[in-house]
């Protein structure tokens, strides 16, 4: 993601600055959590190294641009469309590319995913050009000021929307039949199949859902930053960092991981070095995997 303008604190003291950073991190963390949850589901349940995840993120942002700016639809309607299309695109990718390869080894699926990633990003480049697209929002320009901390209305909305989606996803995983089937598949695919779960449908649903969450993250952050064709790359790598942090298939771990990454980035960028801001994610991955090859919260037995 392109580093955008972060809110500055009104207060001047260290504590005030700190508080501002915390607030910023929480906002960012909620969207990172969306990205991470989507990927951990795909990675965890299907075992696929999903290189298209970042592109779904970019897709979400560009769809927002298309609907809100080009077609001039209502902001919130555009948001819904963007997410729905994200889900659809995810399902399409799974059906066309992954389903025929079911049972192949990991390199093969990985290569196909890389191919898809190349196609998607370059299509975006072709259609939208490399010029950054900004997406305007219906929120007031003036940020909300709470003591020493200032938060823009847009970011409040992003946080709330992301939060709702996270809760929604959680409910889906735990309260619905589909979610139950997904969890069963994650735990033991063969047994789940024997119990009547249609693995094919679960895979499609998982990929579609995960992609939808990525698109949602993109659609929400698009207006905050700008939309460029390469925005997906960093997003994808951060998503992987989050998944590894939280443990494969671990929903709560991914959510938590999203916030942790956002905090590390925010604190690291402000207090250590802003140039290496994006490197934080990678360094995190490497360090975590060296210490605990299964991730920090390796309760990888269940999803959620």
């Amino acid at each position, binding site marked *: 993601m392109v580093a955008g303008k972060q809110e500055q604190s009104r207060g001047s003291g260290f504590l005030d600055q700190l508080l501002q950073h915390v607030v910023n991190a929480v906002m960012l963390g909620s969207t990172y959590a969306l990205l991470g949850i989507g990927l951990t589901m795909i*990675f965890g349940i299907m*075992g696929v*190294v999903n290189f298209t995840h970042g592109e779904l993120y970019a897709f979400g942002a560009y769809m927002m641009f298309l609907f809100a700016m080009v077609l001039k639809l209502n902001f919130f309607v555009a948001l819904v469309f963007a997410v729905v299309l994200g889900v659809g695109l995810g399902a399409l990718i799974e059906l066309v*590319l992954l389903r*025929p*390869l079911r049972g*192949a080894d*990991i*390199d*093969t699926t*990985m*290569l*196909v995913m*890389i*191919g*898809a*990633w*190349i*196609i998607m990003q*370059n*299509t975006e*480049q*072709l259609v939208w050009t490399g010029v950054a697209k900004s997406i305007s929002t219906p929120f007031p320009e003036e940020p909300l000021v709470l003591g020493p901390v200032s938060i823009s209305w847009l970011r409040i909305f992003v946080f709330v929307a992301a939060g709702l989606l996270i809760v929604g996803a959680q409910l889906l995983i735990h309260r619905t039949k589909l979610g139950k089937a997904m969890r069963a598949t994650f735990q033991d695919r063969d047994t789940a199949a024997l119990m009547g779960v249609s693995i094919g449908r679960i895979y499609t649903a998982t990929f579609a859902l995960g992609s939808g969450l990525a698109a949602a993250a993109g659609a929400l952050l698009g207006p905050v930053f700008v939309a460029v064709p390469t925005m997906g*790359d960093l997003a994808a*790598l951060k998503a*992987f*960092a989050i998944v*590894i942090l939280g443990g494969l298939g671990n929903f709560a771990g991914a959510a938590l991981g999203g916030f942790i990454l956002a905090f590390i980035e925010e604190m690291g960028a402000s207090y250590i*070095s802003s*140039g*290496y801001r*994006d*490197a934080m*994610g*990678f*360094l995190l*991955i*490497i360090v975590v*995997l*060296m210490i605990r*090859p299964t991730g920090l919260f390796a309760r990888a037995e269940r999803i959620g």
Partner: protein
Amino acid sequence: MRRWLGWLWVAFLVSVPLWMTDLYYLHVLIITGIFIIASMSLNLLLGYTGQLNLGQVGFFGIGAYTSALISLGFELKLTDNFALAVDPHPAWLGFVFGVILSGFAGWVVGRISFKIRGAYFVIVTISFAEVMRLVALNWVSLTQGPMALNNIPPFTVDIPGVWEAELYGKVPNYYIVLAVGVVSYIVIRRLVRSRLGRAMIALKENEPLATSVGIDVTRYLVLAAVVSAAMAGAAGSLYAHYVRIIDPDVFLFIYTVTMVIMVITGGKGTLAGPIVGGLIFGVVPELLRDTTRPEVQWIIYGGLMIAIVFFLPNGIVPAVHQWWRSRVSRAGVAVPLSEAP
């Protein structure tokens, strides 16, 4: 039969500058050659050892930067009072250091890969290359960051009285790349057809069985990683002294992807694969340069990659080999390791 065919091919390549008058195509061949060397190095990991290293460009970049910095000389401020100053040295020394340093990086990655497998390893290697890129980008005092290191000296020969020359320009660099390429090919071929190569392949095919007959997993993963990294570093060094300007973009993931495409379409786990793949993806972009936009080209390559995975999963070389065998000799006979193309 195969031996002299190989040398014939080399002889042909040696003759190219003599009749190819358009220096532009020579340039294309040089860049292609550099990528072929890098792809061969990736093939050792991807094709033979089964290590999904998607950070290969990291080794390439380390080789490039090391070689460039040694030949340019640099000053590194370690503390307020103490600075490490290195004078400019001949490019070939930079080459040696580039190979050593990237080989060392390979050693580190090899040791890590033993602990972390599969998809996690893929992500670690990608992260490694990205971190290197960000370091190159931000450590401006050493690498000039985005301003790039330029005026990198070309390779020179300095044997007083015998031969003193500055190997600048397309023709000399073509021969340097060809020489390194041939040596690299021979190294890989000898390694892969030996007991050590068999051990690597065994680890890829069936690790428990391999360890049960005494094959040390760590040792061979590390060996493969070191050789692979050193070779990629060599390619990087060649690139630095030919193009003579490098910036952090030399660490871009897209170059790893290019190498992966070359190896996979050519045929992973075969000796000729990276060469065939390299030629296709080195030359085709040039042919398409005037007619199609880069984005469209990349879309074609992405599509091609998917198509190969679906229809020719082992790549072009094995498919051709299979076809040839089914026409010439007994069908369905396996190709022994000692005869693998």
